[in-house]
């Protein structure tokens, strides 16, 4: 359905070239869900922008392709492809224009991307509002954003993402601004909708718990590269990359003792040579600073960009 192949993204800045993404390869199968997880600065929002075709000006893509339904959407900027990708933004409070009704905003987008008359669109939207379990779907069309609660707005945005019959939905941390009880409902709704409509879902998050609740597969990004990828359960239960292992070791549910990871994520303008994680890695070997580790396949599509994935982490790093 969607496959990102060897994608590199650079942005020229005042302090030199920022290497935001480097040879990122990942794919979302038809009807599959892929979570992209990583900390701030790992490049997940740039990846998302690249897929949505909204990279900021001054961005270069020296290598790679994004294939969607067989076409490279980086090269072929046909608007039709955009309608087939729905987007659920992060903040339901900022993503709706307060001076237009919910219906008017979504219908405007449908006018450009969806076939049919306005009457068809309206009927379809009301049906979508029912599908996302908004109370009183017909009346909701004529309500203004402020008349909805945070959870309802996120439902509204999910309906908007589905309005143009997308094949793929891209979600950018759609529940960060919500309370846990609301988050749970929204996640359940997303699971149900993607399953019922056979949608593919690319879900960007920094929360492993949310990831576990929604995604079959996961790609862990670190400093613009994929560190580890595989089935969510396999990666969470048996992480192999030192970064994934240490990051999960920071999770309050799992940590034996809270430590954090020494050092900080490198600036995109000063990425270390070789393995990007090597300056912070407890398993570091002299070769790590020289060569970029290739993705090593393990079982069942589990792959890890570390040749020392079988070594145990030294005690202080886990303790």
């Amino acid at each position, binding site marked *: 359905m969607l496959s990102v192949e060897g994608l590199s993204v650079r942005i020229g800045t005042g302090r030199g070239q920022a290497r935001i993404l480097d040879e990122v390869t990942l794919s979302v199968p038809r009807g599959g869900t892929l979570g992209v997880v990583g900390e701030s600065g790992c490049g997940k929002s740039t990846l998302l922008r690249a897929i949505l075709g909204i990279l900021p000006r001054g961005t270069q893509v020296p290598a790679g392709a994004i294939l969607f339904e067989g076409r490279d959407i980086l090269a072929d900027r046909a608007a039709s492809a955009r309608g087939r990708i729905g987007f659920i933004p992060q903040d339901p409070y900022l993503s709706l224009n307060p001076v237009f009704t919910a219906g008017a905003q979504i219908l405007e987008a449908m006018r450009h991307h969806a076939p049919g008359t306005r009457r068809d669109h309206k009927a379809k939207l009301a049906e979508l509002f029912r599908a996302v379990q908004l109370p009183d779907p017909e009346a909701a069309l004529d309500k203004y954003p402020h008349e909805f609660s945070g959870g309802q707005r996120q439902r509204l945005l999910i309906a908007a993402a589905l309005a143009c019959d997308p094949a793929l939905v891209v979600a950018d941390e759609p529940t960060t601004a919500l309370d*846990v*009880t609301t988050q749970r409902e929204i996640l359940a709704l997303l699971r149900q909708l993607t399953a019922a409509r056979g949608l593919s879902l690319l879900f960007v998050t920094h929360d492993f*718990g949310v990831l576990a609740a929604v995604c079959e597969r996961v790609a862990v990004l670190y400093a613009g590269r994929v560190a580890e990828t595989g089935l969510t359960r396999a990666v*969470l239960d048996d992480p192999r990359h030192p970064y994934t292992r240490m990051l999960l070791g920071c999770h*309050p549910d799992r940590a034996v003792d*809270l430590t954090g990871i020494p050092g900080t994520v490198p600036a995109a303008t000063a990425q270390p040579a070789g393995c990007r994680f090597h300056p912070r890695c407890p398993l570091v070997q002299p070769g790590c600073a020289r060569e970029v580790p290739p993705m090593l396949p393990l079982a069942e599509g589990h792959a890890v960009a570390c040749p020392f994935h079988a070594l145990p982490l030294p005690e202080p790093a886990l303790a």
Partner: protein
Amino acid sequence: MPEILGAAGLTVELGARRRLFGTRPGVRAVDGVDLSVAAGETFGIVGESGCGKTTLARTLLGLQREASGEIRLGGLVVSGQDSATARRQRAAVQYVHQDPGAALDPWWQVGAALAEGLAIHGVTDRAEQRIRIAEMLVAVGLDPALANRYPHELSGGQQRRIGLARILLLRPKVVILDEPTAGLDLSVQAAVLRLLRELRDRFGLTYLFISHDLSVVRRVCDRVAVMYLGRVVEQGRAETLFAAPQHPYTRALLAAAPRLDGAAAGPSLPGDPPSLRAIPAGCRFHPRCAQADAGCARLEPALVETSPGHLTACHHARRAA
């Protein structure tokens, strides 16, 4: 351990305004809260947005005036004062904002902002200020050279450490931490939590830990109070509360928290919390509660001891437990 900070029947109204004709009533953001925080413990307050946890913190601090009720600090009653007096009297209680970057004046260098707190509290000697600031920056795990930076030049984790340094310089006894890990990456969060524990031990602090992240609260708090629409609905030791929650709301909250094992446990909680302007009669939670019966709509349950050291405000608490 003796109580260091306590409240009894604390009620806070927000937004009440005297108009030309009559008054516009406010909302009760905090409604009859009893608390007793023991010296040296980490006391968690959890609840969803709008449950009154931040208002409660600001009132304990003295930034918000209580409508009625009593606040105790170190055995003395400190409530019923105007805000300036209240704040002076409660200097032993300090507050770390949820967004520590925005809590710093963007025009002031970090060092100047830290020195200002000292100056306000009577430490005006420049040399002494410099020494204490450098020491404190090291204590919170920062390079003393950061004193010459502006707030926007710091990372989220660094801003949080500066926020801590700023109030620790004032030598508080109780620190109120408002969502101390919100918006932090997992690895940074772990480092901040570890730092908080170290600082607590080193400076003999008591924490009031406000958070909506149940995983974190479970991890760091000794005791926890769960708030819903301005009231405490359940309170007890963290391990018992998380292992065997007695209030239906606590159960729903725990069930909703995303878990690493991906298991979804317990019933989901439909709907959004009602507005503080339209608090339901009887038990506040009854419209969303699966166990509610006619009695719950009539009579508001009191917070009573349902097992040793564990308080629950639910008519069905025992049966549920």
